[in-house]
């Protein structure tokens, strides 16, 4: 199977997502420039983290008009799995592919640290390989991750089980202290009505090898690979800090 990682001017996690897909998980992966008009036949599209177009005006506000976004919208409308990570999540919000908006973090600090997030729902292309309620230790790095939506919208997200990840304590409790940015209802990630587009502020691509402190992010990529029936091409035992998430065969 193949991942397309969109590169905007100012993306800075594009190579991390590419590395996780290609080198860690042994899949085909391609970096796609934002001015391109083709997703190169990819099965899964990733909008990576960074500061697309310098985050001028608002985070994601300019990136939304990049030519490739027409293709991403069409891909998503056809049911294709799309993952927005950090700035990619902000772009999905601005593009209207996901509901809501981001505000500056409560306290205004840029937060760069490992946090714990709970997998709330497993019926998305990016959480299908996880256990419901599984707690992942994953890094965040953002100044504007304070998720906001009108109360009616948040209510609808809760009712339709569209909240996919929540900031929690290491033991999985949803508390205000575990919320690094003030997001409403501790929201770290959501999905759309059709459940094929997922956005999250934490960086699973930065947590795919124990050498970097956590491999808990692998389950997000693993889910996408399982979903499109991809075969893992490398032999490796993939351990997560919260348990073994899978053994890759040839």
């Amino acid at each position, binding site marked *: 199977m193949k991942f397309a990682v969109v590169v905007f001017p100012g993306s800075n996690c594009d190579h991390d997502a590419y590395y996780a897909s290609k080198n860690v998980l042994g899949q085909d992966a391609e970096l796609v420039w934002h001015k391109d008009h083709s997703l190169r036949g990819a099965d899964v599209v990733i909008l990576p983290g960074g500061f697309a177009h310098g985050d001028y*005006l*608002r985070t994601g*506000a300019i990136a939304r*008009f990049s030519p490739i976004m027409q293709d991403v919208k069409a891909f998503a409308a056809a049911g294709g799995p799309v993952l927005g990570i950090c700035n990619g999540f902000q772009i999905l*919000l*601005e593009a209207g592919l996901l*509901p*809501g*908006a981001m*505000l*500056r*973090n*409560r*306290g*205004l600090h840029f937060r760069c640290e490992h946090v714990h997030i709970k997998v709330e729902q497993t019926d998305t292309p990016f959480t299908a390989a996880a256990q419901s309620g599984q707690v992942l230790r994953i890094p965040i790095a953002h100044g504007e991750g*304070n998720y*906001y*939506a*009108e109360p009616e919208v948040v209510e609808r997200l809760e009712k339709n089980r569209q909240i996919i990840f929540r900031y929690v304590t290491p033991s999985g409790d949803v508390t205000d202290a575990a919320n690094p940015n*003030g997001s409403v209802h501790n929201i770290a990630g959501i999905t759309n009505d059709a459940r094929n587009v997922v956005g999250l502020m934490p960086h699973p691509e930065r947590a795919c090898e124990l050498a970097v402190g956590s491999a808990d992010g692998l389950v997000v990529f693993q889910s996408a690979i399982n979903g499109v029936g991809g075969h893992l091409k490398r032999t490796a035992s993939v351990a997560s800090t919260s348990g073994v998430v899978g053994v890759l065969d040839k």
Partner: protein
Amino acid sequence: MRARVYVTLKPSVFDPQGTTVTEALHTLGYGSVKDVRQGKYFELDIEAPSADEARRLASEAADKLLANPVIESYRIEVTA
């Protein structure tokens, strides 16, 4: 024509920057400042035959790009 577009967070939306500025002003002794809301200000020079047309264009620009309707509202002033 010149259109001035003022974009601010909706009253229902928490403004972490405005709150911080308020606290800073209190630290400086300006206790009479009860609240600050921070926003963005744009000046658009527009070639348009009338103020109405300039306003229409500015409003379209604000809807499409300058403001995010989920969290922000805007107001426009047009001068010749």
